[in-house]
């Protein structure tokens, strides 16, 4: 048997778009096969076809050499194909065992003990270190992902699809996951890894199929191909990972956070005695595992929520108690983490979204009457300056733009406000290499123009690429601040779990 899964000459068309055009994916037994492509390139579509969520318009699917028709996810399960979704599908209040047997109860009477025993065995076999009796809400995100993996193993899947599995993991957890994937392959499984992170492909995958705009660009042997080459295949041109950044002496303090305490919605203190300064002409990167107070910190700075105590100063003005609009007018811009929830009104046109924070000012309106021409001219300018690609220019509804272009539009709007301090929260989340490169350049440009930038990101690559200094947050507290040139990812990874820099430094040297 040369291939365990073969998808031959698959074509899938949606109204107006060819999502997959003559795509062939062949996965060998016991290999980790990466599927690389930009957002919207068609990698999710092809996997959804394999998993029975969509039906191909043309093409053949073969599993273990036999032609099959997969019309729903149950068919896929029956053929031994399982998927770890990007967003876990777990019942938080159930135990690991209950989650895994959900849908497979069989009889009216649950035999939890038997199931737990089998889960324990599987966990030991693949060294997943899972406690079958733990409640899902009490275990870490990395563990929850392993529960998802166990779910597939329990269902005897031997082709495992991982959809962007590392988005929610710390660097250490990512590394462990790569180890688990290699173990799975050693034990006879085959893995398809959907990702846009080249480093993970390089670390774990054997072969990589690259898709661009719905077409298969090529299949490469990962060991013989550099990250740069793969990126070029994916984007269709040369890509530079390193942003050109000249050393620069930072200027005056622009953002000054002093002894800040913030409660979250559940009255739990999520930011504790936090102090940090960001100066003009520097990018400070705030690193931390998701959910360690970053969200609350951002909300306190932007005015979306109140502070409990402490102060926040922008260019020496205390902004606590100021309205959101006042803060914007003082010179704070904010690229929000969730572009759909906060960044855009999706029903509004791109042009209307470009004046979301300035519609009430001249020239966009006068005496409460909007000036459509001024709004459109402004939108055309931002669209052109920030390379926002949209079907009908400023008139396109924002919801119709691709994620990358939505993000570019938001970045454009915020930078166009010419802010003194730019708060960039996960500015490239879910974007492809081309868009990331572009947004990174723009952030560095802000710094070079003498503006202050606070970058909050879960991607260490991004922080190391952009930041002049790195601050680490853990459990709402500032762990330490270090110069980027004096540290490395391993140290920061340890600091994210609460180690001071000296301790992390000693532990890693």
């Amino acid at each position, binding site marked *: 048997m040369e291939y365990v899964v073969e998808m031959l000459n698959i074509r899938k068309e949606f109204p107006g778009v060819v999502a997959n055009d003559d795509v062939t994916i062949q996965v060998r037994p016991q290999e980790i096969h990466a599927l690389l492509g930009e957002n919207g390139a068609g990698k999710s579509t092809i996997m959804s076809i394999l998993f029975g969520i969509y039906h191909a318009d043309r093409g053949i699917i073969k599993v273990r050499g036999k032609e099959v028709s997969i019309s729903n996810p149950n068919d896929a399960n029956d053929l031994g194909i399982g998927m770890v979704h990007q967003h876990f599908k777990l019942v938080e209040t159930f135990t690991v065992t209950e989650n895994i047997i959900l849908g497979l109860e069989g009889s009216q009477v649950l035999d939890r003990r038997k199931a737990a025993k089998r889960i324990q065995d599987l966990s030991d076999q693949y060294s997943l270190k899972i406690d079958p009796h733990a409640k899902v809400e009490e275990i870490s995100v990395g563990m929850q992902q392993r529960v998802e993996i166990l779910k597939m193993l329990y269902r005897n899947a031997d082709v495992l699809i991982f959809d962007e599995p590392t988005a929610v993991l710390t660097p250490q957890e990512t590394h462990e996951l790569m180890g688990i994937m290699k173990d799975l392959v050693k034990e006879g499984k085959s893995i398809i890894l959907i990702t846009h992170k080249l480093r993970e492909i390089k670390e774990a995958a054997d072969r990589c199929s690259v898709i661009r705009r719905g077409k298969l660009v090529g299949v490469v042997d990962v060991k013989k191909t550099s990250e740069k080459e793969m990126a070029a295949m994916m984007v269709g041109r040369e890509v530079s990972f390193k942003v050109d950044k000249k050393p620069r002496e930072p200027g005056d303090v622009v953002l000054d956070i002093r002894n800040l305490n913030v409660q979250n919605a559940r009255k739990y203190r999520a930011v504790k005695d936090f102090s940090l300064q960001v100066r003009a002409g520097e990018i400070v990167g705030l690193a931390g595992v998701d959910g360690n107070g970053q969200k609350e910190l951002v909300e306190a700075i932007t005015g979306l929520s109140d502070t409990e105590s402490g102060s926040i100063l922008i260019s020496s003005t205390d902004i606590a108690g100021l309205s959101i609009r006042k803060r914007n007018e003082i010179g704070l811009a904010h690229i929000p983490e969730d572009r759909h929830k906060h*960044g855009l009104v999706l029903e509004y046109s791109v042009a209307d979204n470009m004046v*979301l924070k300035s519609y009430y000012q001249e020239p966009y309106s006068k005496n409460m*009457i909007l000036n459509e021409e001024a709004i459109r001219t402004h939108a055309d300018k931002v669209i052109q300056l920030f390379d926002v690609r949209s079907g009908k220019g400023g008139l396109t509804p924002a919801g119709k733009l691709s994620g990358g272009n939505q993000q570019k539009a938001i970045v454009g709007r915020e930078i166009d406000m010419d802010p003194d301090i730019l708060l960039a929260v996960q500015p490239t989340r879910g974007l492809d290499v081309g868009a990331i490169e572009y947004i990174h350049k723009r952030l560095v440009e802000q710094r070079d123009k003498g503006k202050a930038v606070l970058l909050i990101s879960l991607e260490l690559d991004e922080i190391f690429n952009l930041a002049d200094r790195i601050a680490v947050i853990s459990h709402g507290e500032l762990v330490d601040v270090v110069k980027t040139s004096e540290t490395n990812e391993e140290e920061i990874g340890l600091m994210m779990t609460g180690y001071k820099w000296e301790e992390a430094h000693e532990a890693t040297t």
Partner: protein
Amino acid sequence: MKRLPDALLMAVSAVILGIIAGALLMTAIGSNPFEGYYHLFRGGLMNMRRIGNTVAVSTTLILTGLSVAFAFRTGLFNIGAAGQMLIGGLCATAVGLQVALPRPILLVVMVLSAFAGGALWGAVPGFLKAKFNVHEVVATIMMNWIAYWVVYYAVPAFLKGDFLETESRVLPAYASLRVPWMTNLFDGAYVNMGLFIAVAMIFLIRFMLNRMTIGYELKAVGSNRHAALYAGIHVNRNIILSMVIAGGLAGLAGATFYTGYSANIQIGVLPIQGFDGIAVALLGANNPLGVLGAALFFGLLHAGKGFMNAMTGIPPEISDTIIATIIYFTATSILIGRGLNYLARRKKKGGK
């Protein structure tokens, strides 16, 4: 801009389907549907007087429909149009009966007081929603009943008629929105100056929603509250403002109904026009011009049903059933839209 023809197509298909359903019903009870519809439309349009009455019925529906549609565009569901309309009518009637002023000023004060009364009735749920996150559906329904009982108490106490305890005195002609030239033009119909108020409001609201900063803010809050907050828009203030305007519009509907169409106010009735406003807004796709069209159409059905009943013996409730059916089809317009898409795709495939 592309949304409008889609919405229009859906509204028209819902109307056609509703009419077909009505025809089936008429057939089922042994009547001739062609005859039925002939008399229904004749009843609404056969002469100037009937046209005038159709327009008069529609006038109220335009304003309540606009009230619901406006609130909806800003993300709020105003079920309280009935109560707001009732209070608006009470305020206008009270001013008309109790205040002595020259006619033009009196009418302006009556209309403004109706707007103010409705606005107050909308402001309370708006405030409760903004400050305490009380759902506006619950609050507006409760306000409907408060309006009902306020009228129940206030009319016998202050505006009692000469013979009946259950309704107010009849407004003198100088305190009515009816004007002789309109009444004469339409041969004695109920049509009144409320029509101009309603049409003016259509264009005012349209302008406000599309061209003014206040409309920009209100729609932003309605479409994505979080993004509006993020951008520095006062979300809570806009929620209250939206309900004030929606309530005021329904209040105006009360003025046109109780001091134009009719000439006094009864106790113990929540005006059905307030609830019909939801249907009007739905069929009109929450677009001011759509509301105008939908209100005229529903007004026609309401105005013609009596004549249909008199001429054919078809019960007038058939007309209400048609309206109800249209609502169902409009509410399920997503399904209709999908069906149309599917047909279009099949046609395309077949052509290949």
